[in-house]
Structure formats: C-alpha cells, structure tokens
C-alpha cells in the first residue's frame, strides 16, 4: 500500500463498452507524482475515452480508477465534479474558452466552479507566467490561436491541479508551434509539480516524452 500512496493515477482492469463495442481495454497502468506521459495511438483507439474516464467525466463499464488517492467511481456525481475542478486541469483540443468572458474571466470562472475563492492576483500571475498578461481583458475572439492556446493552458493551471490532461494539443499546429506548446506544457507541469498526460496521435511528440502508453487500434 505504501508504494500505491505515491501513485497519482492508478488504473486497473479497465474496460469501456460503448454501443456494444469495446472501445477501451487497459489492464494496469500507474503514473507516479511528477511524471509526464504520452498516450499514443491512432484515432479511435480509446485515447479520448481514457482521458474522460481519468477526468471523471465518463464512468467506465468495468474497472477502477484512483486519482490522487481518491476512487472516482466511489464518489457522488456532485463530489466528483468538484474534485475534478480542484484536482485536474484539462486542456481541450479546441480550447473551448467561454466566449462571453474575457481571458481573466475564464480563469476566475474556473476558480469559482471548482468552489475555490476568487483570486485575481493568482490569475494574473498564471497569465504572466505564460506571457499573455497583456491580453487579460481580451475576449477569446480577439486572441490569436497561439494566445488562445496559452489562455486555455492558463485556465487549466489556475487551480494548481495535481493532474493536467491534454487532448491533442498540437494536432492543428505546425512543427514550431507544436514544439512551443509542448515546451510550455511540460515546463508548467514541472513548475507546478503536476502530473501531465497528453493524448495524441501526433508522432512528432514521441521523443519529447520518455514515458509512453501505446493504445492499440480496435479491429
């Protein structure tokens, strides 16, 4: 049990069936504190499904997931939502900034929804760290793609998550920009002492991550 206490993510005997099809099967997988993992595999191999299960957004058909020491499937839905807000930072492929709010508003919303106190100074600090403090009061449609990506990353980091999940963060980017985004993510995850799990089919990222989990394509 001592060995398990250090595990930030622990998955055992996971299976998810959707529409009669097994979309994900994973025997045992464990991520220790501070590790950075790449989830690799072709489209449809279950990367996003695994990510959603890790985030507590999807309940697996079978199996157990422990995240930062807590059993997600044992929680009530409301408790799981709050736990997700406080423990996990998610970077979506399409960013999904809330268009009605400016950048700092998006960050503060993340604090509120996780049930944490509003801390503007913290929001500006994260934006500064990502070098977009000057865009704090811009609305999402006024941002360049690069700026929007950093704003989305800032939102994922605002609550000092112990786990950062990113879904295809580089799929729309050229080599230079993909490199820059991964630099930012790995750097920030290290700075925050967070686990980073990046799901991608982007093979350019292979050499950046020593720890990789390859999911096989389903027949």
């Amino acid at each position: 049990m001592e060995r398990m206490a250090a595990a930030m993510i622990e998955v055992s005997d996971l299976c998810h069936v959707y529409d009669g099809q097994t979309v994900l099967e994973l025997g045992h997988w464990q991520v220790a504190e501070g590790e950075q993992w790449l989830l690799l595999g072709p489209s449809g191999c279950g990367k996003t499904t695994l990510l959603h299960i890790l985030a507590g957004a999807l309940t697996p058909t079978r199996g157990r997931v422990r995240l930062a020491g807590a059993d997600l499937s044992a929680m009530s839905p409301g408790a799981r939502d709050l736990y997700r807000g406080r423990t996990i930072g998610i970077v979506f492929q399409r960013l999904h900034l809330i268009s009605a709010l400016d950048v700092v508003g998006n960050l503060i919303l993340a604090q509120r929804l996780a049930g944490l106190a509003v801390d503007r100074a913290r929001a500006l600090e994260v934006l500064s760290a990502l070098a977009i403090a000057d865009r704090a009061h811009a609305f999402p449609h006024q941002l360049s793609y690069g700026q929007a990506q950093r704003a989305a990353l800032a939102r994922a980091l605002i609550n000092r998550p112990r786990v950062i999940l990113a879904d295809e963060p580089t799929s729309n980017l050229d080599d230079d920009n993909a490199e820059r985004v991964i630099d930012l993510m790995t750097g920030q995850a290290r700075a925050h002492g967070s686990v980073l799990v990046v799901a991608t089919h982007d093979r350019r990222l292979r050499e950046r991550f020593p720890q990789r989990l390859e999911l096989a394509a389903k027949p």
Partner: protein
Amino acid sequence: MNALVLALAYLRAKPLHTVLNLMLLALGTATIVLLLLFGEQLESRLTRDAGDIDMVVGAKGSPMQLILSALFHADVPTGNIPLSEAEALRANPMVASAVPLALGDNFRGYRIVGTTPDYVALYGGALAEGGLWAAPLEATVGAVVAAELGLRLGDRLVGAHGLGEGGMAHGATPYQVVGVLGPTGTVLDRLILTSVASVWAVHGLAPAHDPNEEPDAHDQPEAHDPPETNPAPATAPPGGLEITALLVKFSTPVAATSLPRAINQQTRMQAALPGYEIARLLRLVGFGIEAFRAFALVLVVSAAVGIFAALYSALSERRYDLAVMRALGATRLRIVWQILVEGLLLGGAGAAIGLVLGHGVAQLAGGWLWREHQIALSGWTWVAGEGWLLAMAVSVGMIAALLPAWQAYRIDISQTLAQG
C-alpha cells in the same frame, strides 16, 4: 464569477436577442400596468365623485347620461326639470336633502354650476380663501380652476354658453370671484360655483334671488334665445323656472326601492341611482379593459416564447461552454441554476422596465387626458396588483428557462467534448 455575473456576460454577448426579449416583456407588462392604473383610478375617482349621493333626479332620457352630466360633469345634461316639481320632491319625507344644480355655461371649459352651499358640503370642500357666493353674480371657484386659470379674488369672469369652450359669451353679466376652494380630489375642484339665481340672471330669467322664493319665472338656462347678452330685465318665462338636476340623499334606505320608481312613473322627471349606473359604466369600461388585458397577456406570452427560444437556441451553441463548465468542476445543479438565472434575469429586467414604462406612460397620458377630457390619471401611484405582475413576469422568465435548464442538466460531458 457567480451565476449572475456570468448570466449578464452571456446576455451582453447577444445584445439583439436580449433587447428584443426585454422589449416584448416590457411592453406586455407596461400595458397591464397602464390598465391597472387606469382601472383603479377610474373606479376610485367615480366612487369619490359620487360621494354619498343616493339618487340623481333630472330630465327624462338616459340615466347614464344624467349621472355623467350631473355627478361627474362629463356629458351634456338630459334637459331641465321644472323647479316646482323639484320643490315638490324636496318636500317628500323620504328625502333627507336635495341639492339643486343649474348647468348650461362654462368659463374656458370649466363648468359654471348654479347650486347651494350644500353642494360644497357634499364633497367636504373647504374654503382656501375668500368666502362662498352670496350676492348675485358672485362665484366661488374650485382649486384646479383657480390654479389652471390663475384666478384670484376679485377677478371677473364672463361665462360662455354651452358646456365646452367656444360658446357665445355672456359679456354683460360677468361673475366676480369671491372665494377659492381648497383641493378635494373630486369633481368639485374643476367647477365654478354660484347660486342658481345667478345662472338664471345671466340668461335673463327671473330676478337674482333664491329659487325657493321665485316659483313663477321661466325659460331654461340650457335652451334660451340669442338675446341673452342683454341680461337684466327679469322676465318671468311662461313655463316656470327650471333647474337641471337635483342631487338627493335619502332619509331612509327604503326610499331606494320605492322613490326612484315613483318619480320615473309619476312625474316628468327621471331618477337615476349612482351606485347602479357606476357599476354599469365600470362593466362597460371593464369590457374594454379586459380586451386590452388579453392583448397584454398575449404580449407577455410571446415574450415568454421569445425567452424560451433564445435560451433554447443559445443552448445548442453553448453545449460546449456548458460541458466545459462541467469539466471545470461545475455540478449539474450549478449548470441548471445558470440557465434559470438567465431566465430570471430576463424576466425580472423586462418586468422592471415594463413597470417604469407603464408608470411613465400613465403620467404622460394623464397630462393629455387631463387637457383633453379632464380625466385624471396619475403615474405616481402604486397599485396593489403590480407586486403580482412583477412576480408573474419573473415566473414567466423562469418557466421559459425550465426546459432549456433540463436539457442543460442532461448534457453528457464526455460525448459533448468528444464531438468538439
């Protein structure tokens, strides 16, 4: 970043939708407010003007017209009644008091009423300055008349024939203002009072003294011949002197059932009961008010449909936003609350704008109604029904938000995010 701030941000992000929905709801609410204000003020005004007069007696014709002309001074009289018959009625033991009215002239649109001081007492009027009329051609004016026309004690005013402005002037027989009444909030404020004898004198009938002592003069204040500019020669008309109406208070409740019928069947006069006629009038007006209210409800319902459509269509655009909010830690209930708050906000704001609009329009329309029809309507009062109205509008917003909120509740984070 609470639900309210976020709701405001979303409403601001869609200004056209927001403004249109607010307008629909505000117009519906304003119309209802206007009707409430008008209905209530009309009713209280009518009841106040009716005072505790039990019966109005005048010439035969429409009882409604008799009430309107003699009680509210809002229509032309049905005609005149012989003074002798009026006097006979006054002597009836079932009559506690009977105040005579002689109508026919106006001064710049304000009616000149020949009557006795009892008429002032009927409305609880009190002198603000000067005294009541006593000598011939003396007049005491109501508070509104004095204020609107700037009349002071000692001013002279020349009556014109008819009850509206522009009649032929009685230039040779000006009245002198000897008193001004304080405001009563009744029809009294808008009248110029003098003695019945003065009205006769202006029209060249009979000597200017008390009608009771002069039972044998004639012609009518209403329908006299052109040479009324020449006043004085006190000719006694062959038909006997006449007055326009008699305001009667009963000495016993039994009178209400027997006396009006007796008058209507056995004399050339007509008796009308204010309570009955006012109820009839309010029913007639009430029908119009009901029609307008139905129309206003249609506006409110379309506003509800508008808010529903806005929230519902926004929901499909906002599926990702809502899923992201869930991913950021929002519970299902928090999402539901978010949508409800937006509906409540639209409903509340629309109702508030509607209330302000309704009162503002009532005040503006009040000014116009007063100038054109001497009907008082004020926007600066609060009607009891408005609290309900506000509650209704807020509920409309909330009910419109219920289905979208339920849809938001059911959003599957994983599926939604996977699509995006």
